[in-house]
């Protein structure tokens, strides 16, 4: 295994590290994306650990900073942030393709990184695998019931009485307010969040071209993802579910703080990488 420091892109503005496997690399390149504003090493250096684990499995793996994050400056003709991120990811795929001859790629990202990976996967058919950690989530009636019950359980007797009084006051002032179905599917992060219909169509498109998608939810996003089957319930009847692997890990936090959580995450990514590799081999 060997690591190479590099700059890439038309302005050489993107800074990254390739972890090369010993011997010939697998025909699938792996790309690790920034988690929010954390630079390319990832929260608690997890991206370094993941890159080395994947390289030991034979994958050439690139971790890099997208424009404006970490050590990468925006290019002189920068696009709006999500478009620029997709452009940067395409540049990173071009880089691995030119250096190692790989033509298919797996993308991994946490939070904003998951959303950037999702956008790139839709924009570039070279993406054969997508691992989203705390990416988009869609609520269900059951999720709301679970969250409500959890909130009530966490309250003291006094807090419970206060909350009951507040509910009675609210009901007295607006007794006939009915929750609409539209409210029940309101996305959790409205600004850049796809609608439920858009997400279903996007995931179907990825499934149709054989991309292996994993969506992992941590114990830090209980207010967005509250039980293991939430994705299945939110998209009941959609055929893309057969190819989507949805994981709920309440003992892993959003920042992957405990070392044990880091080991669990790395194992899940390793397993996903192998499925994406096999899927790619089956198609080619």
């Amino acid at each position, binding site marked *: 295994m060997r*690591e*190479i*420091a*590099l*700059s890439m892109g038309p302005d050489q503005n993107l*800074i*990254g*590290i390739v972890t090369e496997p010993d011997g010939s690399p697998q025909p699938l390149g792996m790309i690790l994306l920034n*988690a*929010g*504003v*954390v*630079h*390319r*090493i990832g*929260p*608690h*250096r997890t991206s*370094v650990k993941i890159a080395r684990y994947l390289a030991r499995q034979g994958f050439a793996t690139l971790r890099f900073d997208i424009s404006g994050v*970490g*050590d990468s*400056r925006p290019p002189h003709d920068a696009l709006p942030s999500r478009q620029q991120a997709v452009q940067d990811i395409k540049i990173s795929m071009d880089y691995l393709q030119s250096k190692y001859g790989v033509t298919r790629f797996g993308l991994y990202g946490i939070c904003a990184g998951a959303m950037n990976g999702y956008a790139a996967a839709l924009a570039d058919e070279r993406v054969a695998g997508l691992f989203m950690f705390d990416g988009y989530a869609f609520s269900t009636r059951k999720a709301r019931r679970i969250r409500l019950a*959890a909130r009530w*359980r*966490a309250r003291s007797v006094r807090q419970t009485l206060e909350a009951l009084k507040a509910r009675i006051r609210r009901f007295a002032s607006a007794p006939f307010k009915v929750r609409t179905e539209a409210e029940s599917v309101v996305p959790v992060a409205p600004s850049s969040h796809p609608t439920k219909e858009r997400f279903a169509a996007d995931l179907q498109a990825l499934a149709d071209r054989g991309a292996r998608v994993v969506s992992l939810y941590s*114990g*830090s*996003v*209980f*207010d967005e993802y*509250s039980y293991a089957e939430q994705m299945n319930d939110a998209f009941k009847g959609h055929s893309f579910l057969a190819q989507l692997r949805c994981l709920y890990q*309440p*003992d892993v*936090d*959003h*920042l*992957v*703080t*405990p*070392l*044990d*959580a*880091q080991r669990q995450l790395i194992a899940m990514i390793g397993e996903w990488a192998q499925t994406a590799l096999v899927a790619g081999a089956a198609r080619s």
Partner: protein
Amino acid sequence: MTPFFFGAEDRQLFGLFQSGERASNRGGTAALLCNPFGQETVRTHRMYRVLADRLARSGVDVLRFDYHATGDSPGEDEDGEPEGWTADLALAHTELLSRSKAPRVVWLGVRLGATLAIKASIIVERAPDTLILWEPIVEGRGYLRELADRHVQTLKSSFNAPAHLWARRLESGALNLGREGVGFELGDALRSQLAALTAGSLPRPRGHRCDLVEHSDRPIVAALAQAWRNEGLDVHETVLEHDFDWLAAEALNTALVPTEAIQLLSQLVMGDK
């Protein structure tokens, strides 16, 4: 900005070199920025990046680097330890001297990076002209306690699922908390070396000038400054109003790049203060 690896084949270090941009200032100052430990490095990365850009625009050659087993450098978390990192810092200094012709060399270290700078200054052939030490760690046992406390605090704030597994494991003692510090493994050598770190064990740094930057009065640091003055070092103490939360988790919206810190540190590196 040039990313590269340097050092011996069996202990390569990752570095980022930024050449000073203003030709008129070439031959002025070169700066080595020394990382703190673990989560504090993640927290300070953006600040160092902004500071490095600002210094480079003013003509200063800047080298940032990762110690062995940290950041992008090879090595696993558990292999990192302060004695090795002190040697890494000295090696980075040599690398900076090979890339810059600047006659004046400044080291800036924060927290454990400042402590390592103190120690490395006495082993390098050519000492830095100025050391800027921002809240150096001078009591290792206290630092280990701080890491343990913040680790648990981070876990408590990071999870919001009810009755989550980690809390049950915490109560049962199943998590080996002594070996974890806010997401980073604390190896045996790291813990034993930190446990042995006291203000009295620190040497008087070599160099012409030392700037100690503190948020609040720490008698132990004031005493250290006085002791160094008595030994002939030109020590300046500066108060920085901003209270930097070194160990905050990334998701919390604490300031990553406090303006007053950037201004003060730039002035100190440039020798303008």
